[in-house]
């Protein structure tokens, strides 16, 4: 009998190894709200680096089929007491040195600053600008780190298969009635918790923007997409971010993620 119980226990334990998957479970129409929020939290937490993340990439801006600009970018991320700090900098072109800093805080709005080399000081970014496009790209300030889980209400929909990936589907609706993009629909890969497709809807509930992520690779204990494409369907404008290299937990100094250090030269370069 003891041996039999051991077998039963082993069968129960031999379930999904991912803790989040075990919590989220299969689609249940009675739990759409709770599951939706849980999935959103998982997306935020699962691919958070234990210490830091350094990404070097190339951003291509396209207007229609024409390439408008190509810029090298470096993205740094630091986890400080479970809160994220992220910096984004253009490394070349006439935008070189333009740096964007997001400091996640326990509160309604994260702090965001924009540093332009000619000004030699960081400027605060208004929280109402979080859904504005960052520079000329099709990523918003919110996409660069200002999104707060509590800013949205979530609804889980039935799971969907995207290619060979089984995905959670979550609709997020902004609590801000004046939001430029009040509705997002995300398809989140159940294995990596990377949103592989996000559709962004305007105030008229028309699809305005689509973001897709591909070439998902493991970097340390997390996953990141090595290619992200965001397309503004109205303007027929596309931003392609291709990752050239990514390193996790390299020992980035937390003091680099300070508004007063935004103008400093970065050791990382390519």
């Amino acid at each position: 009998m003891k041996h039999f119980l051991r077998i039963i226990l082993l069968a129960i334990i031999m379930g999904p190894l991912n803790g989040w998957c075990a919590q989220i479970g299969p689609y249940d129409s009675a739990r759409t709200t709770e599951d939706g929020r849980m999935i959103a939290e998982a997306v935020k937490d699962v691919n958070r680096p234990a210490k830091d993340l350094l990404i070097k990439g190339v951003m291509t801006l396209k207007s229609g089929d024409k390439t408008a600009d190509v810029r090298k970018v470096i993205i740094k991320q630091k986890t400080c007491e479970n809160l994220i700090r992220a910096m984004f900098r253009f490394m070349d072109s006439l935008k070189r040195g333009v740096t964007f800093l997001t400091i996640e805080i326990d509160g309604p709005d994260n702090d965001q600053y924009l540093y332009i080399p000619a000004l030699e000081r960081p400027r605060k970014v208004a929280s109402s600008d979080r859904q504005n496009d960052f520079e000329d790209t099709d990523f918003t300030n919110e996409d660069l780190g200002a999104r707060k889980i509590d800013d949205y209400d979530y609804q889980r929909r039935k799971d969907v298969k995207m290619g060979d990936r089984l995905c959670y589907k979550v609709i997020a609706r902004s609590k801000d009635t004046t939001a430029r993009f009040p509705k997002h629909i995300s398809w989140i890969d159940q294995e990596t918790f990377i949103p592989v497709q996000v559709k962004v809807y305007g105030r008229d509930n028309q699809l305005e923007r689509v973001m897709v992520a591909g070439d998902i690779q493991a970097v340390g204990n997390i996953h990141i997409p090595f290619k992200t494409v965001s397309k503004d369907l109205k303007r027929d404008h596309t931003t392609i971010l291709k990752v050239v290299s990514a390193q996790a937990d390299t020992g980035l100094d937390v003091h680099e993620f300070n508004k007063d250090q935004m103008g400093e030269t970065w050791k990382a370069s390519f």
Partner: protein
Amino acid sequence: MESVLLNRPVKRMGAPEIFFITLLLAVMFFMSIPFVMAGEIRRDSASDAPSPSLQSPHLQPRQKDGVVNGEDEEEAAETSEDKVFSDLLGEEGATPAPIEPEERPYGIFFEGELRSAVWYQTHEPNQWLTANRLDLEAERPFGNLMLAAKFRMDYENLENENHVEMDFRELLADYRFKPEAMAYLDVSVGKRMIYWGKGDEIRPLDRVCPEDLTTFYYYDKNDRKTGIRGLFVDAAFHEKLRLEAFWSPYFEKSRIPGPGSYFEPAAMKTFVDAGGVLGDDQSNGWQSDAALGGRLLFSVAKTDVGLYAYRGIDPNPTYGVSKMVTAVPIPFPPYVMPIDPTPVEITPFHPKVTMLGFDFERVLGPTVLRGEVAYLPQGYYTSVKWQDQADLLYQYPSGLKETRPFQYLVGIDKNDLFVHNLFLNIQYVGAFISDYDNNLDANQFTHGMTCTVRYSFMDSRFQTRWRLFGNLTDGDYRNLLEFSYKPVNWAMISVGGIWYGGGDKTDSFGQYDNNDFIYTQLKVIF
């Protein structure tokens, strides 16, 4: 029976165990049926989906061909939402080969910028002028030690002759300590620029560094600066509490437009043309108390605040009467005739200024609110009305009286005003002389404003900029309008115009009413 693997005897299962295992397997089998069947439906949907051609060849969502019989409205809507845009991943982007930092020559970070401009004066004598600037910047880290340099070379002919100026704007060694009680402690020695205040272009607090004003305001304030030489400390006690301090034992003055220069002050020209003498300016040189200052930066209630204190020699000159005549010779007794005091020589000097102040920046609704206040209790001089009341020169022989003004600024910024990439900045600037008296040749309150509008489009390939400086008290102004085009991502061509007006010949901008000009500039980065 023995198990070779477990190395212990294996007990045969009895009827109860067999029953429970069978029950467990049955439950797992029946629970899996819905998931397997759902998977079959999705696989059928994906394989049956046509790929319709759409307007954009890069947008090929795969979608279900019509609605499956029996689906309700909500499910139909969900199905249409599930259009897949994965073809976007086929969009081609550039991928240059990565260059590792070790491949930098001698490990030096280096970049540069060249700006070359031609001006055309739109009034007589319709001069053609040129202003060219080369900036080079280099840094080399050695662990926690950083060596940095910013070099500049200017070539211009604004002073009626070709003029080349070379300057190390910064040349310093910086070392970062990491003491336990602090986030970091940076100590620098050398020549370094100081950036104080939160205003755009006009910053009452930002008076430490000398500036090159020979092109007046053609270059922005930060671009006009050069560093001060000394010792600099930057101590971060906490992420939200920082102290900066410096000491400079070397005085360096600003470059001011001189006689015959395109931006020669009108009052100076009038005085010199009338036979007056312009005395020599103080020389640059070592002086142990040339400048001492610091600021404390912190955040409170989501507001970034700075407290400032400074005592140092003002790099910008103040012009005072250095010689005057009170009598003229006559050919008959008493051979001397008294006259009203008349200045015959004006000399620039650099008083030692004390400044206290604060600034702040805060998000306010959809805008960002910034402001700063500077109080100058010592070393600030204002002209007296000696031109109307000559005998004031007996009371104030230099023609100046030391006053205690407050200078202040408040401004708002708005990104994406009405349309994307339209930036607006409006600032109110003012000054208040706290110890005003009627002998002063100035208003107790002075008001002004600045307005900047920038708009870029087509991925910043085209940019426009309009900037207005306006003195509301005297009514004079400076306007700049510029259009820029970026043919490649390392070059920009600009055409623009700057025009002055209002006020009179004694006002900051009004005096240059005949100095309006249009220009074209090429900027190249490398």
